[in-house]
């Protein structure tokens, strides 16, 4: 019965369209516009738009490079180690460092990325203050007490070191920020001398050292991802502020890895996760805030 009824309806509609072509075109147009309007104002499309507005250049999925990157110019034991003052190491600098360490021991990945033009290599000479303490024969002071006079010798040794930097704010990497404290001068990696005063060869003294006010150290390598679809939307209320929120699961399509990630040395040192495969996707829960009908990106649980 139903197919017959539908066929009848279709025939009658066609007949109507034949007799009034202009009106039919108008009705179809209005129906199309209504459909587009309904589609554009649907929640998932609006959420997708808010997501794209928040990441105009595309969201990122990042792999940890923590095992490769870092600064390995540390002070060992009692000796002070410092670098010459350059644009990278001055207290007014904010270097973006991939790796820094002794020149004899450089990670393969840093060498490879420098060859591909992602990193820049800087060669510097570190100075190491080697302190040796010599205890002399027993002696007496003016009061008659026994003591051992000791003499402190400083030997300044030079050691070659290498720094690999990225471009400032390079979006292909994520960074961890290290910054210097106010009262206590913590280290952000590179130390230089505060004063240029000459250092005597004997005597017990401390050499004031200072590091750049901030150092950004690469912590991950990133792939661009593009939002494709929304699988679930859940309305929530913020328990603290009472804001209306939407928690949406967004599926992103992952770009194929760029050539510098698609290398044996990268796979060997940073790993080769499944998202490198062709057509892979990642899913993220993203929170949107409903601000009187205006949807705004709030946070996503990634990186």
């Amino acid at each position: 019965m139903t197919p017959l009824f539908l066929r009848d309806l279709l025939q009658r509609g066609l007949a109507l369209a034949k007799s009034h072509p202009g009106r039919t075109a108008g009705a179809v147009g209005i129906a199309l516009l209504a459909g587009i309007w309904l589609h554009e104002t649907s929640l998932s499309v609006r959420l997708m738009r808010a997501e794209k507005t928040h990441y105009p250049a595309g969201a990122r999925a990042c792999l940890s490079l923590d095992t490769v990157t870092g600064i390995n110019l540390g002070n060992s034991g009692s000796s002070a180690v410092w670098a010459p003052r350059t644009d990278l190491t001055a207290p007014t600098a904010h270097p973006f460092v991939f790796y820094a360490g002794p020149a004899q021991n450089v990670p393969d990945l840093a060498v490879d990325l420098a060859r591909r033009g992602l990193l820049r290599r800087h060669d510097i000479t570190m100075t190491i203050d080697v302190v040796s303490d010599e205890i002399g024969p027993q002696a007496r002071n003016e009061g008659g007490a026994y003591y051992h006079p000791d003499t402190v010798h400083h030997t300044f040794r030079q050691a070659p070191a290498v720094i690999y930097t990225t471009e400032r704010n390079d979006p292909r990497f994520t960074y961890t920020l290290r910054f210097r404290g106010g009262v206590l001068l913590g280290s952000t990696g590179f130390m230089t001398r505060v004063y240029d005063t000459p250092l005597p060869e004997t005597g017990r003294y401390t050499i004031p050292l200072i590091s750049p006010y901030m150092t950004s150290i690469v912590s991950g390598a990133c792939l661009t991802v593009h939002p494709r679809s929304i699988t679930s939307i859940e309305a929530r209320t913020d328990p603290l502020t009472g804001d209306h929120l939407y928690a949406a699961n967004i599926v992103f399509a992952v770009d194929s890895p760029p050539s510098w990630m698609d290398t044996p040395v990268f796979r060997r040192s940073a790993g080769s996760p499944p998202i490198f495969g062709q057509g892979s996707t990642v899913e993220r829960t993203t929170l949107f805030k409903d601000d009187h009908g205006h949807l705004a990106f709030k946070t996503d649980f990634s990186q």
Partner: protein
Amino acid sequence: MIPTMARNAAVAVADAIRRSPRRAALVAAAAFGAWQVLAPGDNDDRRAAREVLATVRAWPEGQGSMDRDASRRLCRRVNDESFIDGLGFLGNVDRRKMALPTPDYDANTAGAYFGGGPRGVAPSPFLQALMDAGVVRRVPVTIVTRTHQPTAAALDYVPLQDTIGGPLPPPPTRQFEDTESRMDADLFIAPGDGAAWFIANPDLRKGLMGIAPASTPRIVPVRDGTGNAAVPPGLVTPDGICYPLRADRVLEYTDAKTVGYKLREITVAILMKPRTMPGWVSDPRVFGALMGAPVLPEDVRVWTFRNAGDGWRLSGLTDMRDMASNGHYLGD
């Protein structure tokens, strides 16, 4: 000559406008557009960073501490061993010590007082460095100790009720005697301009979390015209050094982002430099005596500022997250 040229040019321009007003308008619009496009970009964030720099430049430099408040002054404590406390306890009511006034040390002496000791006392390494730099002077004085005590006769006088032996013995005529002893001493004083870095700052003694405050020596009083002892009012015992800094320039700033209704936030790294950098601050004997960091020739501070509509103010917390990947670095 130049006024004539200017007048001629003005006449020519007016002529051109009168002849073809539309073309003149077009040329003006094109020039304006070109200026808009080619003028150096002075975007909103950069302007906010510049306003923040102006705010920091307007901070007071005579009070507060840059580590805590909106202030351009920085203070560091000096450790206890920097002072010389070799003159014993002063201020006992029965043993009054005072220095005889000399041209170098009288009621008008102004400056910073670092203690003193018997003539020829050795200064601490910190003071020796300041003396080598000519900031602190060794001031020789004669200290008079006036002791007010019972006479020997008064101590012997025991008025017992012994009527068999006769009447009471007569009391001694002088119950008390004042004796005066003199001692040659040296005081360590930073007079005049050199004392600007060393001021009494009770703030440095506050909030030390159980650390004993520096035991500063008491100032030797001077005998004034009436023979009484008075501490020179212009002399202070420093708790540490305090020095003003100037805001040199902005090194880095983040985007000025909106964090609420009409509320903006920006994080700025500003290079602060001491107003003066005397040679003695880089002496190891001096920075070895300072608690905390030495005096830095280039002190970079990162602060978060908020603007609620009435100018940029220091936010309580510093949010550096954006500096890691979105900072605008100007550098040198």
